[in-house]
């Protein structure tokens, strides 16, 4: 789309500028080719490799690999963790973005920095921090054990780690949007008698809905694909605390390559589904503006 805009803007240019853009044509072609080649090499080829390897022993072997009880448990767990963590980071992200964009308060900068923290910290370190906090020898470990609550090497730990790594996506998507919108419409709603909730629901939210969906999609993709942080806290208990990415690794380490790729192709499907959803959304945004 931006290319179209650029082309339209380029129309009323002078002759000199036009010839300059003609001169740059080979350069443009070369750049395009380089970009496509790069994408093909590092994105498309691996994807093709995943699917060819997954189907290398035929469709039946693929079905067998993905319907193994452990694979099904891993798929189920991955979906469950995403379903638990994505709504939470969405609510957090909307609230934090709104606070940051609309109010000037003490600790605003700190909150901003904290939101970015998961982008800055290695996921493995994040996982380790949770082990240090909630593990058996950890800070809250004994207290939790007394009440029979298991966090580390159990599903709660996996959800926590996923929350940590997905925290920034929604908030980061919304802050610039909300800042660009300004507060005029919200103030207009207030003078017209809307309550805080009505203002948010009828005015703020409709204006940021596409950005919000986009943030949610990104967070979801990360939630389903996260390896590092989840790997540290999960304990790799088969059928219990193995998510899809962890299950792929186990299969691979056991030299069951075809099964590993078959399960990986499931993840790839989830990722492709996410990308298609994103593309559809982008088209709708383009259409509605």
């Amino acid at each position, binding site marked *: 789309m931006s290319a179209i805009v650029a082309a339209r803007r380029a129309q009323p240019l002078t002759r000199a500028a036009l010839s300059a853009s003609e001169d740059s044509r080979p350069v443009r072609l070369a750049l395009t080719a380089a970009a496509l080649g790069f994408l093909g090499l590092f994105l498309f080829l691996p994807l093709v490799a995943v699917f060819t390897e997954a189907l290398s022993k035929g469709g039946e072997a693929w079905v067998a690999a993905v319907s193994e009880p452990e694979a099904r448990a891993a798929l189920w767990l991955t979906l469950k963790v995403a379903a638990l963590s994505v709504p939470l980071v969405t609510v957090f992200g909307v609230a934090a973005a709104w606070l940051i964009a609309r109010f000037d308060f003490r600790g605003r900068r700190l909150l901003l920095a904290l939101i970015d923290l998961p982008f800055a910290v290695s996921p493995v370190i994040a996982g380790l921090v949770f082990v240090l906090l909630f593990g058996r020898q950890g800070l809250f470990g004994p207290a939790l054990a007394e009440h029979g609550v298991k966090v580390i090497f159990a599903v709660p730990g996996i959800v926590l780690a996923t929350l940590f790594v997905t925290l920034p996506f929604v908030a980061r998507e919304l802050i610039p949007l909300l800042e660009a919108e300004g507060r005029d*419409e919200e103030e*207009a709603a207030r*003078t*017209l*008698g809307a309550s805080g909730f*009505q203002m948010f629901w*009828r005015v703020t939210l409709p204006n940021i809905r596409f950005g919000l969906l986009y943030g949610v999609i990104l967070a979801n993709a990360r939630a389903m694909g996260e390896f590092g942080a989840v790997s540290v806290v999960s304990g790799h208990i088969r059928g219990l605390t193995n998510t899809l990415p962890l299950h792929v690794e186990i299969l691979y380490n056991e030299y069951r390559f075809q099964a590993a790729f078959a399960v990986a192709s499931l993840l790839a499907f989830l990722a492709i589904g996410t990308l298609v959803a994103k593309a559809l959304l982008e088209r709708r945004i383009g259409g509605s503006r």
Partner: protein
Amino acid sequence: MSIEVRDIHKRFGNHQALAGVSLKVETGSLVALLGPSGSGKTSLLRIIAGLERPDAGQVLFAGEDATRQDARHRRVGFVFQHYALFRHMNVFENVAFGLRVRGRATRPSEQDIQGRVRELLELVQLGWMADRYPSQLSGGQRQRVALARALAVEPRVLLLDEPFGALDARVRRQLRAWLRGLHDKIGLTSVFVTHDQEEALSLAHRVAVLNDGRIEQEGTPDDIARRPATPFVADFLQAEPVAICHAAQ
């Protein structure tokens, strides 16, 4: 309904935006706040509407203290400088908004809402535009939708921030005459902000000249034009034609 502000102070950071402003607006009158950029006109209007809280001083509606009252309960019609129409709603829904957000007990029936919105759109001469979105309207049309939206909730007073600021000179003159006519018709107590002295003097019953967070003079257009009370007012009225000459070059 009359409006009174008493000794309003407002600071932003270390800038004193309003330094002791007192003003009375009689029921049914049309008052202009006139002053240079940054003199505190918008700040004063926002404080009257309850969108900003004064550091000190009082706001009274019909003699009753409303300083602590939330904007939502003040029943003040506010027309924003850049209209602030709801972009994702069509003209009809924009105007209907204030009615739809009412509590169950006071919300009109759908039929009444339809009737009231149509009536208002006729009033601002935009009946045929109900299905359009704000982005499909001209500046003058947006302005009138914003006005209809503000009037829909039957406000007790009407506040307009530079209502003609973003319009070209011709549309501006038309709208000005139209607004005066509208005011004569419905008699709603109104305050509008402007930095155009001609606008203030030709439209308002009374004019308050603001400078640097203070009211320099308040009076009828005649008073202000013939008997400027301070050197600033005299200067400000003098300076205007020069500014227009500069703009024309």
